[in-house]
């Protein structure tokens, strides 16, 4: 009679599999980035050559011209103010236009000198955006009892309609030889 052969145990050792997986995990942790980019978003106007530019008259009450010169001084409609006051200056004016139709909303125009330092420009832009954001927050608090960021998409678009962010970057002046 044939004796049945004893089959030796055939297992693949899996004890080190976890170590291998950890190694892979570490590799991915090192080579990838998880940080989220934050910044100030803006949409630039389309480029139009100088000959084709048309001047459009805008009602001065709709317009707030923010000028930043090379020393970091800020001029809004003829008044010199510090950078951190831009927000308070603009907030009331933006909020007063909430009930007006779409084509009468506030436009903030930001203009800098060629020698203005970048971070001054960023803080000015930051102030303008903050002003808009706070007006949005106040409006949504009033209307929906929530902050703008906590609203759902539908209500967000209503608030966006009422308080649109219109920031215009002034056309840079071509360099003049003086």
């Amino acid at each position, binding site marked *: 009679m044939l004796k049945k052969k004893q089959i030796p145990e055939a297992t693949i050792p*899996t*004890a080190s*599999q*976890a170590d*291998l*997986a*950890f190694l*892979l*995990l570490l590799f*991915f*942790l090192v*080579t*990838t*980035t*998880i940080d*989220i*980019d*934050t*910044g*100030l*978003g*803006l*949409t*630039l*106007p*389309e*480029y139009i050559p100088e000959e084709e530019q048309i001047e459009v008259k805008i009602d001065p009450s709709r317009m707030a011209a923010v000028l930043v010169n090379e020393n970091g001084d800020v001029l809004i409609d003829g008044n010199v103010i510090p950078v951190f006051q831009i927000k308070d200056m603009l907030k009331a004016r933006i909020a007063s236009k909430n009930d007006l139709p779409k084509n009468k909303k506030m436009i903030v125009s930001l203009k*800098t*000198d*060629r*020698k*203005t*330092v*970048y*971070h001054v*420009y*960023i*803080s000015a*832009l*930051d102030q303008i*955006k*903050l002003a808009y*954001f706070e007006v949005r927050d106040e409006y949504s608090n009033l209307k929906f009892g929530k902050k703008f960021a906590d609203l759902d998409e539908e209500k967000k678009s209503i608030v966006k309609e009422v308080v649109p962010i219109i920031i215009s*970057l002034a056309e*840079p002046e071509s360099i003049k030889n003086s």
Partner: protein
Amino acid sequence: MNFKKKRANTKEEIPTTAMPDIVFMLLMFFMTVTTMRDIDVLVSFKLPEAKALEKIESKRLVSYIWVGKDKRMQINDSFIKMEEIEGIMYDKKQALPEIIVSLRSDQNVDMGFITDIQQALRKAYCLRINYSAMIKV
């Protein structure tokens, strides 16, 4: 007397067979939420600070322009000159129409330089930009 300790008859091992599966799950999670670091930044810069920050929703749409302290510019993996921006960015816009250009510039660069970059971007129709900034505390 019997000094032998009483022990339960059960095995005293922690089962480790499922550990690789758990680690692989972690791995999968990291693979999906992160993006590959594909560019070495060659310029040195310190970002400006701001409060009204927005997050960029999708990292895949973002294309970076780095501007260093010494006003050197980097796109992708190489230094570029001002005149080259328009061409490069136009090609990028063609490849990816929803492109967002993130400007990572040093805080002490003058605005003339930034304006020139913006004009080049406008000519290339890359109109959505984002001024990268750190959160101000």
